[in-house]
């Protein structure tokens, strides 16, 4: 009797799992189809590549955010982390450090800032929302202090740094390639490696994971470091493209990243989520922005539409 019962549950689980997996993808396809019908320019290869490049900035942050949200946390500081690590990178390039080393230093800076978040949350026992809310303003403040409120521009940075945000490889914008590589690496870490399993387990039931011998503090600290590093990576692309590090760069980027994660079906309660979903979520947001622009809809309305899409995504997710 029990076996029969569980078989039914299993079937239901499978079906809802399928919805969960395919839902965002179907939404993306439908959305792209609608935009194409209304303006056929959308489907032009040039526009699509442009779209992908636009998406990469948000997608990279959202990948890191996915890890954080799967542990049941949140990282509000990503926008400020992006600005601070970008400013520092621009600063050291301006000081004459080779750009490859500067890029590495920028990424480490991001990871370090993320690690501070992690330590605050694990060792300091501060709620993720509060802890990263505080560092959000601290990192932003430090950026303003460091840049004295002015953009850092004209630092050149040689070919490597220029290429980072502006280059093309085989006709594909380099940021898109970076995003693809980052996605592949993080996908493997999250879904194929023990680190990912531990990340999920902590979000599912932290106490049970801890008792099972998982060093939850360490895993969480690393998760926030990943989030910081991805924010920094995103910032480097932005800085390279603009050829300037803005002290206000990345303001409110955390919201787009969280939106992408949520649209992608990752649960804010933790324990459930998929990186593919986040990628699709970022693409949905990007398609909306790009499509609404093509259709000549005012940016004021765009915000309304974006909000409505988030609500629809969450409602559909709950229905399952």
């Amino acid at each position, binding site marked *: 009797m029990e*076996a029969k019962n569980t078989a039914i549950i299993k079937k239901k689980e499978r079906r809802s799992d399928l919805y969960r997996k395919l839902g965002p993808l179907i939404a993306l396809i439908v959305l792209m189809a609608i935009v194409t019908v209304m303006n056929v320019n959308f489907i032009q290869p040039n526009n699509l590549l442009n779209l992908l490049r636009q998406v990469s900035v948000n997608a990279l942050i959202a990948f890191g955010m996915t890890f954080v949200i799967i542990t049941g946390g949140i990282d509000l500081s990503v926008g400020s982390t992006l600005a601070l690590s970008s400013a520092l990178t621009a600063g050291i390039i301006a000081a004459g450090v080779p750009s490859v080393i500067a890029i590495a230093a920028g990424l480490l800076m991001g990871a370090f800032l993320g690690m501070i978040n992690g330590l605050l949350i694990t060792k300091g026992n501060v709620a993720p929302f509060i802890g990263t809310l505080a560092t959000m303003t601290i990192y932003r403040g430090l950026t303003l202090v460091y840049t004295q409120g002015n953009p850092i521009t004209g630092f050149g940075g040689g070919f490597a740094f220029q290429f980072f945000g502006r280059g093309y490889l085989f006709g594909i914008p380099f940021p898109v390639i970076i995003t693809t590589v980052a996605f592949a690496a993080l996908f493997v870490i999250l879904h194929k490696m*023990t680190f990912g*399993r531990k990340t*999920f387990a902590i979000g599912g*039931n932290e*106490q049970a994971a801890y*008792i099972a011998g998982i060093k939850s503090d360490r895993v969480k600290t690393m998760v926030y470091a990943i989030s910081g590093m991805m924010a920094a990576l995103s910032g480097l692309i932005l800085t390279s493209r603009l050829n300037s590090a803005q002290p206000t760069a990345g303001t409110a980027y955390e919201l787009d990243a969280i939106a992408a994660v949520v649209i992608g079906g990752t649960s804010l309660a933790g324990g*459930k989520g998929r990186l593919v979903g986040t990628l699709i979520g970022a693409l949905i947001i990007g398609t909306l922005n790009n499509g609404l622009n093509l259709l000549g809809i005012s940016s004021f309305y765009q915000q309304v539409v974006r909000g409505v899409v988030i609500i629809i995504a969450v409602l559909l997710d709950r229905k399952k």
Partner: protein
Amino acid sequence: MQVELKGITKAFGANQVLKGVDLKLEAGEVHALMGENGAGKSTLMNILTGLHKQDDGLVYINGEQKQYENPKEAEENGVSFIHQEMITWPDMTVLENMFMGKEKKNKFGWVLTKEMKQEGERVFKELGIDISFDRTMRTLSVGQQQLVEIAKTLLNDAEVIIMDEPTAALTDREIQLLFKIIRQLQKKNVVVVYISHRMEEIFEISNRVTVMRDGVSISTKATEDTDYDEIVRQMVGRDLEDYYPEMTNEKGDVVLEVNNLSHLPHYENISFKLHSGEILGFSGLMGAGRTEIMRGIFGIDPFEEGDILLDGEKITIKTPHDAVKKGIGFLTENRKEEGLILDFPVKDNISITAFEEFSNNGWIDTKEEKEFVELLVKRLTVKTAGIDLPVSALSGGNQQKVVLAKWIGAGSRILILDEPTRGVDVGAKREIYNLMKELAERGVAIIMVSSDLPEVMGVSNRVLVVHEGAISGELQRDDVSEERIMTLATGGK
């Protein structure tokens, strides 16, 4: 109130949970409803209170056919169900909790606290409860919360109160208080339906017993006309002559030595030795400090003084991670909070302690993992339709087996089992005992903390009794008795 359920059937999908159940409840009786998990007790009660609708059969209240549409309507008509897992608002006051959704208010919507307090006091007085209305629910013990729930039902002038496993989380003192209140209710002619797995309680409190098995009511008898063996036989459907497995008394070397462990005010100067191949029982009253000692050894709440020797060598355990690495496993007393990730598949719940077994430099070999888990599921006869099923879909007994599988998979040489059979039905209990025996025979050293005296006596090779944070006595298997344990547990010599 007199309630009669006749020929109730109910299926969930293909699963026929009830196959024609009859049950008659008389005013002023405590009616025990017994049966293994999945026998259909809760479903039957949920039909009475209108949460589910039966496929067939009728409900009669005071001789008239009556069907409650939902639990709220049932409650308003005096039929209340106190669920095992109570729903409370932990940060709101006792008063607010009692009147949740039915606050007294004037025509401007102003809440009339004074009137509510008066009425609450009336009910508290009737039941002899003394809890301040202004305390938040969170600060109450589980037992006190339960009393508030009972009082709440009386605000509706409940005439039928259904209690599902009310004593599962109560201390002995709280249980006695609950029983006192149940007797009080009885005097008021209230029907109490008492669902429990604890046999002693049934004989202490109930007037009649109905046993259910596989969706059918097997029998209803006056409690004094039946006995322990008969009820168990009816529940399981067969004799349970050798309920506890035959234990051998062979034991190996000392694997774990605990010296003068202290963590005030929970426990002080705890010393004992654990041999490989033995099952060491830890008995004592609830709150005596047994669980705290185990959590100290395992590194969840580290101890302050003392030391632990593993195979004669001193080791430090600061976190559960250290303990797991040293080959210690810990089945906690609350598997839903600390033992399992309920939403996760059986597979992930088992493999969580043993990533090294099927991964290489952090890469998981999913095929190997699946084989690893399936082997354990088979060995422990976990009843599940598949290892991808969420563990929450399993019965209590099978969930407990999943926790055990996790620790066996981790290769634990020392297993600490805290209340291993809590919330587990009779059949699965036996399987867990057999498993413990098998593990012991293969050299695993087992510590079993249990509040179930027959279990402690039936399974342990040796029993340590804890009283107020100290070990008050050690009993060998041959001279262990219920009286001896209780004497030591209550501070006697």
